[in-house]
């Protein structure tokens, strides 16, 4: 009992005067799915979705309550059998490409995918020019 009082005292000392944002009551904010395969699918999706109120974290890496709500949303839908890309599309419909760390191939993001190709081309040109000149004495 003394321990509980101490904990309560400690918590009171550090809690600010205003009300605290509650953690979401969503069931799967901090709970994994029972089916391991589905949990892995959910985990992969969560690692690629951005937390909307953080400075740059995925919802899998954030303690923000909104991230908890989003995690639960993802887990519940995957448990119900929904495809991860469908969930991602649902979120993108509402928040734009910003919410997904995996850039989709759209009219806005095609340069991201073009750049590696361009770099490959430049690399090839540079190396080809460097190497096709035969050395002075035959090989």
């Amino acid at each position: 009992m003394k321990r509980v009082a101490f904990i309560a005292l400690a918590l009171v000392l550090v809690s600010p005067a205003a009300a605290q944002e509650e953690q979401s009551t969503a069931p799967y904010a901090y709970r994994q799915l029972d089916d391991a395969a589905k949990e892995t699918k959910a985990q992969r999706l969560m690692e690629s979705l951005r937390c909307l109120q953080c400075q740059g974290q995925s919802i899998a890496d954030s303690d923000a309550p909104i991230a908890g709500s989003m995690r639960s949303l993802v887990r519940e839908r995957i448990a119900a059998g929904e495809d991860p890309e469908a969930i991602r599309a649902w979120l993108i419909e509402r928040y734009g490409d910003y919410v997904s760390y995996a850039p989709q191939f759209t009219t806005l993001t095609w340069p991201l995918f073009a750049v590696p190709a361009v770099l490959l081309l430049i690399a090839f040109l540079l190396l080809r020019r460097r190497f096709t000149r035969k050395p002075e004495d035959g090989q």
Partner: protein
Amino acid sequence: MTDTPKAPRWALWLPLALFLGFVVLVMIGLYHPADRNISSGLVGKAMPQFDLPPALPGRPGLDSKILANGKPHLVNVFASWCIPCRVEAPQLGELAKAGIPIEGISVRDTTENLQGFLEQNGDPFQRVGADDDGKVQLALGSSGVPETYVVDGKGTIVYQHIGEIRPEHLGLILEKLNEAKQ
């Protein structure tokens, strides 16, 4: 000695060209900084369907069907722990007095804290739905509190106001409500 291979001309100037591109890009970023707010993608589309339980005893919860009853509504996404929500309370009060129906969605909150909040800051809401797990906030495309949505009589979202409604925004809100009436 035969001429040793030299680097191709274009390769020598490529780094400078790329750097100039970088400078231009960054100047745009510095002088026309993008809006940090994340807007909902549902503006211009139908309000998602939901039926939230009551957040306060003796007050009905919020069923989205209400929002398609022919009259334009304001939907205010708020919470007792949200400090800018206190700043916008007087403006909401004014809008309520002008006869505009304001529905509230409280996000990740408790009855006790809500009651305290409304006692302190006034109560402009007709109905308050409790979105304790935050799902409806996500379904709306809302990324924080406070946000206010202007919804027309058919249930279509006409306008999303991100952040607190300050006195200078009242004109804009009334204008959007007029648009919603058409």
